[in-house]
């Protein structure tokens, strides 16, 4: 397996660095972006994750959503789903949090050079893809093509609404956003349907394409099948897997997928690497 991870911070992989909350940006009714100022360097690559801690309460894994080149601050975009994320949603500017990482392999960007890159995001899965997209924009002249397809449940669940308007104007990006459903009051003029419905009809060469998916398990499963249907080889399908990553260094045992640990061998895997393991979508 190709390894792209760097060493975790310092000589103690269990130590968090201190970060201060600068801004809390409400994105949707259940999703907030927390902007943090770090007290130590924590360089990461797209797809790698960090463990964010509410000191004394607990940690949870997140992939940063800010660009890798952004050194002034780091963003994480967090959906309120459980105990730690609930506490994260209560954070206010000035609060202290802990960050540990980066962990795992990110996307092998050098392998994307010369390829047609098709990125598909679902719901809060758009957060880590935002980081990836900014890296792809940076290397855009080395890519044959850049396509983004994003879906979410309804218009009010769409992340980074203002920012993404600017993406729509980029001539070097082919972007379509869709929603699963909307009402008449929603003022949505894009397509309606699950995200796989907007993957049809893209004119591209699947043998020279890379497919990237990040989102809820059900969305990743059907996007993967769609990628296959479109003819993208399994080894060019990149999935960002969500398991119960805790230590980040393949020791605590919670996030095993077959012969891999999601934390250190992933969280980005090619479909070829994991397709034979039972229960990958569970």
């Amino acid at each position: 397996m190709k390894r792209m991870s760097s060493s975790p911070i310092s000589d103690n992989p269990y130590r968090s660095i201190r970060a201060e909350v600068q801004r809390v940006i409400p994105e949707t009714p259940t999703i907030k972006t927390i902007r943090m100022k770090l007290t130590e360097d924590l360089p990461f690559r797209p797809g790698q994750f960090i463990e964010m801690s509410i000191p004394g309460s607990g940690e949870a894994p997140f992939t940063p959503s800010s660009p890798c080149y952004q050194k002034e601050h780091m963003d994480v975009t967090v959906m309120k789903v459980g105990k730690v994320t609930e506490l994260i949603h209560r954070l206010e500017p000035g609060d202290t949090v802990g960050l540990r990482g980066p962990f795992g392999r990110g996307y092998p960007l050098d392998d994307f050079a010369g390829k047609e890159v098709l990125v598909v995001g679902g719901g809060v899965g758009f957060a880590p893809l935002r980081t990836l997209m900014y890296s792809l924009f940076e290397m855009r002249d080395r890519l044959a093509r850049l396509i983004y397809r994003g879906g979410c449940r309804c218009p009010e669940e769409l992340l980074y609404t203002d920012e993404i308007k600017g993406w729509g104007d980029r001539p070097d990006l082919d972007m379509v956003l869709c929603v699963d459903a909307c009402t008449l009051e929603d003022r949505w003029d894009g397509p309606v349907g699950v995200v796989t419905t907007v993957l049809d009809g893209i004119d591209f060469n699947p043998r020279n394409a890379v497919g990237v998916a990040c989102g809820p398990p059900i969305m990743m499963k059907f996007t993967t099948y769609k990628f296959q249907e479109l003819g993208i080889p399994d080894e060019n399908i990149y999935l960002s897997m969500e398991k119960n990553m805790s230590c980040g260094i393949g020791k605590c045992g919670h996030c095993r997928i077959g012969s891999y640990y999601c934390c250190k061998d992933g969280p980005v895997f090619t479909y070829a690497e994991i397709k034979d393991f039972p229960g990958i979508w569970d």
Partner: protein
Amino acid sequence: MRYVSRANLKLLLDDLSGQYRVFVPVRKKDSRFYSRYEGSMDDVVIGEVRAFEPLKAFFFPAVEKVAEGFSGGSFPHEKDRPVCIVGVKACDLKGFKVLDHVFGQEDEYPDPSYIKRRAENLIISSDCTMAIETCFCLALGLKPFPQEDFDINLSPVGDGFFVFVGSDKGKQIVERHAGLFEEPGEELSSAQEKSRLRVIREVERNIEEHGVPSQDRYQGIIEKGYESAVWKDEAESCVECGACNTICPTCHCFLLYEQMKGDEEFARFRMWDSCLIKDFARVGGGDNPREHLWMRLRNRFEKKFDYFRKVADIYACTGCGRCISACPAKIDIRDVLRKLVEENE
């Protein structure tokens, strides 16, 4: 090879107590527990059979502080003298093969605390001089006497022990205390061989009685038995206590948690965890890849007999039988292996 009398072994342990915290197996009723050596050899049983507790506890404690605040600081935080563990059995030593793979120097992220203890602790192992009903080490390719991964091994004969040196550290200790060791008498050699053979016979009898398949028949049993009825059948009586995990010399999973220390500082700890517990693999959003208990029981076997085989070419079982004794539901790893092998062949 040399010989040390029990009286001289006491003198050796007295001396080692200056440098090490020495632990010896002490018999209480039908079990043996590691106890701190305080200068008395009463009730100390060097031979016999494996202790109640797994050896991993000395290298990977049940609870350990791994970080303190944001300030860095060294890890491990323990400043105590290293440990010398006496009477360690071959089955526990095999545990190192698994733990070294997870925490050791060869890993991409060596664990600072484990490595320190591995380097500094001293192992004075010993042969088994008996087997208990749950012993089945031979099925895992082990012998009931240590052959590697010890500093010094004691092989009980007569009123003393044959002494084998297994590392430079062990060699130095024997050399430094040369006066305590003697040349063994001829006649003791055959006594030692007889004793070893007798214990092998005892374990063989266990294996025969329980129909325990040997490890050369384990290849593929998990993959082929993935949908076997064994998992649901066996899990029916499981009470999800996790005793099999905590008592196992190769189980290494842990839970990270943190606690406040006063209003400002916090500390992070790791504690042995159990893959049988429902929330073990559950993600924040609530999805659980191993929702049902039988899936978690299967996962335990998958980890031991498939995962470790693939990543480290080893079966993560030592045949120590602790999980059999510890299980309140009487789930017997030997029966599970037998059924899987039978279904596979």
